[in-house]
């Protein structure tokens, strides 16, 4: 008889039109680090939300220490000492670190919140586990890595001994990831049990004891990590052999297409500049990748280059023309295509039908309108062609409302639209975020095809695998500055990590 601390048996959870968990079983041993592996939208987060009491499953039971329990809200989970670090942190930004940690479990002195007692307990925990935080700082002012510590302290403050980490490494540098793994091993040594959700196999190999795999909502089995190869786990996760490394020919860069000089962009949230004197060049026929941890100015840099925001100084030149202050429409006419970071915020009008989204950058062109009236038939034909050519799948073809499409197909539609414009410069910001392996492979192929067609490509990515895989040249951005330039053939992830964390930097030229 194994000593299981948590058992989730035959869990089924349905949402309208989709079965997110289909007869899933997960058994967590006491004192182990157990990885939950699966692609994006394989049902990992749903399963954890069930465990955490955020969703109620249609079928299946949960056992704690062999006893069946009912978890109908997070309070029940807390009472069972289950805690979770969510993928998207659940922190109130204008509250202090201390208030965020105690929220929902406030120590009281009469009717008043006893912040002094809370502070004492938090500082003790902070010291004991080496999780340094400033309790009086506001969450909006601290770094992402620090925010994760606050989330971890939230669990510890509630005396949780079953800790769930939902994709905790996505926002960290390689070095911070190592630190986190040390912390996790420390928890294990104290007898706490850990569930570690991820789709990164290397991390599982590094830290986990056992690994359960989900694919499209179904349970694929549990393996011992020590006895299982990365390839086997990958096959379990995706269901076929995966060519994770895209093959591409040697690049032959041509003329400079995009030239950015000394670009400085003010920050929206603080008084500091988000981008400081950043310069780069992208030539025809090469993929230049801007790497870095989220929130180091990449977004603001791209916004300034694409015209969504205004830089305070510096110049942007596209094919020899100064476009620093040009409106977005003019940039587009000059041959700039932009696959935006947030497809729901910028990339699509979700309530428009797909055909209207397909012409979002071109509806004003002579071919699509006449005398101010839309040529609906032409738009329909154009959209039908893109759908067919780029294999965009949707319920009702061109008339499908974009909102009802899957994330992968939404992204394919954007890629189709931006590539079909036949641009000189393709800017792709995190083009594969949140997609499954099939879609990622497809989009990678399209980007490489653009390069081979002698287009200039500027790629922004947080995924180091993607960076190493696709780019011909890598630039690392740290706190708004470009701190290093690398050839992917002669560098490795660890080196990039040091630059991304600001531990090292190349001297600026001239």
């Amino acid at each position, binding site marked *: 008889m194994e000593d299981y601390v948590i058992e989730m048996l035959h869990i089924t959870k349905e949402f309208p039109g989709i079965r997110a968990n289909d007869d899933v079983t997960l058994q967590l041993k006491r004192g182990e680090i157990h990885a939950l592996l699966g692609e994006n939208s394989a049902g990992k987060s749903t399963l954890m939300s069930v465990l955490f009491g*955020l969703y109620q499953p249609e079928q299946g039971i949960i056992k704690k220490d062999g006893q069946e329990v009912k978890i109908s809200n997070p*309070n029940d989970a807390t009472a069972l000492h289950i805690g979770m670090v969510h993928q998207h942190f659940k922190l109130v930004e204008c509250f202090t670190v201390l208030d965020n940690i105690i*929220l929902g479990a406030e120590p009281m002195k009469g009717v008043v919140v006893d912040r002094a007692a809370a502070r004492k307990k938090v500082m003790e925990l902070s010291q004991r586990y080496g999780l340094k935080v400033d309790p009086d700082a506001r969450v909006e002012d601290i770094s992402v890595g620090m925010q994760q510590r606050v989330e971890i302290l939230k669990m510890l403050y509630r005396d949780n001994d079953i800790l769930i980490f939902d994709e905790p490494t996505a926002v960290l540098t390689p070095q911070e990831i190592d630190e986190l793994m040390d912390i996790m091993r420390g928890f294990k040594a104290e007898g706490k049990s850990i569930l570690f959700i991820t789709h990164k196999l290397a991390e599982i190999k590094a830290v986990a004891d056992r690994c359960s795999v989900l694919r499209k909502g179904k349970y694929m089995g549990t393996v011992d990590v020590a006895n299982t190869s990365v390839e086997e786990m990958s096959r379990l996760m995706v269901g076929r052999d995966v060519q994770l490394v895209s093959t591409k020919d040697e690049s032959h860069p041509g003329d400079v297409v995009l030239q950015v000089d000394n670009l400085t962009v003010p920050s929206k949230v603080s008084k500091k500049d988000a981008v400081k004197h950043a310069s780069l060049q992208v030539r025809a026929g090469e993929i230049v990748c801007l790497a870095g941890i989220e929130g180091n100015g990449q977004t603001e840099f791209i916004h300034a280059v694409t015209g969504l925001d205004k830089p305070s100084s510096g110049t942007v030149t596209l094919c020899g023309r100064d476009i620093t202050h040009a409106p977005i429409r003019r940039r587009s006419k000059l041959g700039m295509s932009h696959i935006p970071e947030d497809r729901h915020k910028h990339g699509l009008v979700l309530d428009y039908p797909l055909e209207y989204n397909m012409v979002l950058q071109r509806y004003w062109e002579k071919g699509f309108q006449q005398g101010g009236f839309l040529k609906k038939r032409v738009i329909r034909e154009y959209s039908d062609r893109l759908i067919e050519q780029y294999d965009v799948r949707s319920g009702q073809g061109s008339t499908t409302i974009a909102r009802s499409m899957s994330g992968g197909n939404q992204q394919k539609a954007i890629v189709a639209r931006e590539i079909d414009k036949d641009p000189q410069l393709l800017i792709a910001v995190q083009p594969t975020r949140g997609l499954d392996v099939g879609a990622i492979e497809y989009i990678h192929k399209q980007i490489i095809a653009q390069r081979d067609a002698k287009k200039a490509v500027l790629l922004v990515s947080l995924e180091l695998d993607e960076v190493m895989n696709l780019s011909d040249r890598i630039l690392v951005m740290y706190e708004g500055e470009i701190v290093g330039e690398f050839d992917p053939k002669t560098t490795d992830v660890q080196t990039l990590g040091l630059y991304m964390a600001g531990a090292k930097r190349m001297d600026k030229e001239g």
Partner: protein
Amino acid sequence: MWLLLKYTLLYASVLALVALGGMFSERSGIINIALEGIMVIGGLMGVVAINLFNAAGIPVVLGVILTILISGAAGMLYSSLLAFSAVNLKADQTIGGTALNLLATALAVVIAKRINGSDSPKISYNSTTNKVLSNLNFSFQIGPLTLNWFIVVALAALVAAWFILYRTRFGMRLMACGEHPQAADSVGINVYKMRWCGVLISGLLGGIGGMAYIVPAVGDWNFEIGVAGMGFLALAVMIFGQWKPAGIAAAALFFAVFRAMANIFDSIGFLNALNWPKEIYNMMPFLASMVVLAFTSKKSRAPKAEGVPYDKGSR
């Protein structure tokens, strides 16, 4: 000058009460544009209660306290319509609030007409018609200065609001719901319940505020004009006060000066000499609010999740 002070304090307490109400609602994440309507209902029920207690001949002190409580309760009851649509049905908060504003005036006129048994929507509660309990009982004198009990209520509400918001568990959780309801939910706070509380408190304060506007100043009220935009001014006070009790107190005083001038401009020498029509003074607080908002709103920081219905299912 005493007169100016009297009316300034009167309107400041009205604005502060109602704006504090708005603050509680918005801090919980619900935009409460229905404050105007809540004031009308609170005021109406308060006035009705005065006349009932007058007829029943109950002791004055008890009557004053009870009528204030009744106006607050009426406001709460009415605000529950907003809470129901905004919290439970996840309806558009601005539209729901607008509906309640329109409904309130219509309801008030219908009820007033029925009470009068005639086609007049005007209700009197002055010392000529009411021998036991009238509007005069809500005021008291300190030397040359006439004050009213609502000033005391407003001061108490300000202190209480500060304490609740920044010192108690309830306030902390309320603010969390207005800023990041998913975060609140994830630590076991019932967002729906907190938002209901926020709206109900706004109903309580809005209802009392409605009565504070109508009763101490005049002896009869025509419910066709509702509360003439006072609830909307309170919204401006709340924004100008940055959703904070201390800021609201200051903003309320500022706007109250403008509003008070409309009542007494003809008794202030230099204003009278200008010979401006009364309507200009009526317009003044609204103009002032626009000027103030134009200059401050770029920096203004509303509760992040306000206006966004919270749905447990979607995250």
